[in-house]
């Protein structure tokens, strides 16, 4: 009896919750089936910041207006885009997104997620064929081979599941380059010309000799050992965790990173006081009083982190080729399985990621390196794309060749944790708090804590 009362109570509470949830959409509760041919009135987009919204507002031709608080964008046919923004920090975005995706089947039509975004570090989790939360693009009526032919190949690979079915598309592409301080280059090499400096940093061996030169004048080559990590990890030949396995395989390249970073740190090529990235010390290393010569950054890094942290005059930085091609980051757009607005979603994905003119406009307005091979080649040759921050240099000249040569490392669903925990465990080793074996053991502990299904860590010989 008690149980039944309790069950009734719980049912009431749940029902109340549901009612509260759909209070705003009210009218069309009947159209809960996914087969409805009628397009829904609300497009729900999940994202972690307003990056996509600002770009969509600026270039998507169907946009009528956006509410002042930025939560609702109205399209010309009256359809509303509802933006659901949760920050990336501490995995909040993924938690909220996961909850919503798992309830997708039971949600009312206008509460269903229609589009969600993901980042390279965890895109694989959502493109997984078995989970089937992101629709294959072909099901939407987009043929990647023809409609997205001008995109960079590696972005298509990244957005595909393990069978190669593309389940997402991106407007941006994040080729990493080497950004350096012109004044330091002049002081040490006597020139700040990107071609000459590029020669000095063209591969790791040359860069090491250059680092010695820089050190002799009291400069650091990079700020932190974490700065070079992406260059190594993006060129791995095997994923961190192979499909269907429960073993983390550490790529030899990652061990090279450990070895080189330790060597560089001990040799004084890196700033010992900067530990990791995106912290106060790292930000200060981008300021005018810092002794750091260069950073390895993708286009968004220059725009979002370097520019705001630089306190000197514009034009003090320049871009040149990195020692090795790599990609860092990128936001992917996915159509959520079960969307009630497939036509709109298709239109948005095509307009935002396949239309060359739109993409070039994004490049011009937001300095994104956009996902169109021919467009970026044009930009590289077009001086109107020059940046004041880079002293009038046209950075696309350097981005484009890098982008064409990127071979993205095979992804796994465990990438985010592996990258984060590996860097963290070994920073203790770099700083001399623990020895090499202890750092390895700490990584094993940490990764097994984070992912209960990981049973083993395999280290290269």
């Amino acid at each position, binding site marked *: 009896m008690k149980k039944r009362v309790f069950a009734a*109570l*719980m049912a009431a*509470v749940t029902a109340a919750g549901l009612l509260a949830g759909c209070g705003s959409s009210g009218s069309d509760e009947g159209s809960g089936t996914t087969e409805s041919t009628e397009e829904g009135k609300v497009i729900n987009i999940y994202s972690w910041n307003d990056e996509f919204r600002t770009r969509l507002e600026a270039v998507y031709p169907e946009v009528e207006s956006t509410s002042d608080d930025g939560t609702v964008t109205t399209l010309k046919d009256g359809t509303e885009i509802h933006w659901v923004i949760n920050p990336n920090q*501490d*995995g909040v975005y993924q938690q909220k997104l*996961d909850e919503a*995706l*798992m309830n997708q089947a039971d949600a009312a039509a206008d509460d269903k997620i229609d589009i969600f975004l993901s980042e390279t570090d965890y895109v*694989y*989790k*959502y493109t*997984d064929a*078995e*989970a089937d*939360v992101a629709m294959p693009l072909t099901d939407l009526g987009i043929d990647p081979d023809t409609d997205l032919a001008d995109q960079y190949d590696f972005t298509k690979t990244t957005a595909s599941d393990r069978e190669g079915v593309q389940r997402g598309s991106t407007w941006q592409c994040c080729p990493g380059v080497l950004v350096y301080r012109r004044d330091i280059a002049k002081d040490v090499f006597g020139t700040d010309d990107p071609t000459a400096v590029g020669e000095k940093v063209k591969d790791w061996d040359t860069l090491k000799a250059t680092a010695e030169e820089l050190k002799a004048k009291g400069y650091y080559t990079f700020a932190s050992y974490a700065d070079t990590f992406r260059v190594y990890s993006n060129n791995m030949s095997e994923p961190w965790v192979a499909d269907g396995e429960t073993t983390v395989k550490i790529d030899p390249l990652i061990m090279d990173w450990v070895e080189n970073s330790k060597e560089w740190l001990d040799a004084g090529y890196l700033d010992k*006081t*900067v*530990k990791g990235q995106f*912290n*106060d*010390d790292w930000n*200060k290393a981008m300021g005018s009083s810092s002794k750091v010569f260069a950073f390895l950054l993708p286009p968004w890094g220059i725009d979002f982190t370097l520019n705001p942290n630089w306190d000197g005059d514009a034009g003090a930085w320049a871009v040149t080729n990195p020692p090795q091609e790599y990609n860092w980051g990128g936001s992917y757009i996915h159509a959520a399985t079960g969307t009630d607005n497939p036509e709109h979603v298709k239109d948005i994905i095509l307009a935002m990621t396949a239309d060359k003119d739109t993409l070039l406009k994004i490049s011009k307005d937001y300095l994104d390196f956009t996902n169109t091979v021919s467009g970026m080649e044009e930009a590289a040759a077009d001086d109107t794309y020059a940046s004041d921050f880079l002293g009038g240099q046209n950075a696309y000249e350097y981005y484009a060749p890098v982008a064409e040569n990127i071979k993205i490392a095979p992804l796994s*669903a465990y990438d985010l*944790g592996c990258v984060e*925990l590996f860097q*963290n465990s070994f*920073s*203790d080793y770099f*700083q001399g*708090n*623990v020895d090499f074996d*202890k750092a390895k053991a*700490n990584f094993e*502990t*940490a990764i097994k*804590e*984070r*992912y*209960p*299904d990981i049973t083993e860590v395999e280290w290269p010989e």
Partner: protein
Amino acid sequence: MKKKRKSVSYAKWGYIFILPFFICFLIFSLIPLIDTVRYSFFEYYRSGIKEIGPDFIGMQNYISLLGSDMLKYAGNTLILWVIGFIPQIVVALLLANWFTDIRLKIRGKQFFKVVIYLPNLIMASAFAMLFFAMFSTNGPINSIMISLGWISKPIDFLGSVIGTRSLIGLMNFLMWFGNTTIMLMAAIMGISPDIFEACELDGCTGIQRFFYITLPQIRPILAYTLITSIIGGLQMFDVPQILTNGQGNPDRTSMTLIMFLNSHLESRNYGMAGALSVYLFIVSGILCFFVYRITNGSSDDGTKAEKKKLRKTRKGGR
């Protein structure tokens, strides 16, 4: 018939009025609590976006937890708690004693009470972020010390075990000593002034008065402070989490039990996290029991409500 009417009881209204609380308690506390225990016997987590389980695996979670670094984290938690608690209780006793001393006549008592309580009002995470920025290698504390000529090279506070642990201890001390002071002040003011007067007449010194009158008289409140502080210490999370970015750097030496729990929750590992919570529950139960016994001598009603004890002392029991 009439007789029955006379004995109409209004007690049921009492029950009806407290019903909302019990419903809330049932839904938001008791059911999750039972669920936690239940899930601790299951393998239940999320891999990517796929749910694994729940599969019943008996005591497996408990066994594998014993094989993990749990005891090391328990040690860390204890050390961090002690570093924060000892200065906290000493300073709080001292301040409470001064503030309540009629002879000292400290002015602006109310003002100081507010000021020492203020750190507790700051969100712990904001406080930790502030410390993180202040004590970073290129942060203001290092710059000040260098420009004063005290040190020649910046100190890497957060890169050393002692530095990180002391900072966490310092923060916990700063956040909680005000709270403890106010509680102890209330306790001291609850002591009958007659006793103090009597001891003055007998020519007792300030130190004697403190050790022979104040301390024994506030023992119940001291015990309460200790118990709540231990439970709070076991749950230590936000300060070290933010200060060390959730990793318990360096070398996992400031990883507390709840941070360990939190890292299980990143993969929604309800089974393992549940088992860990059950361990914590048992440990806090035992700790409370012991502390209570020690501070309360012969009383054997264990961890029962503090109220009862207070009433007893007020009535002059013992």
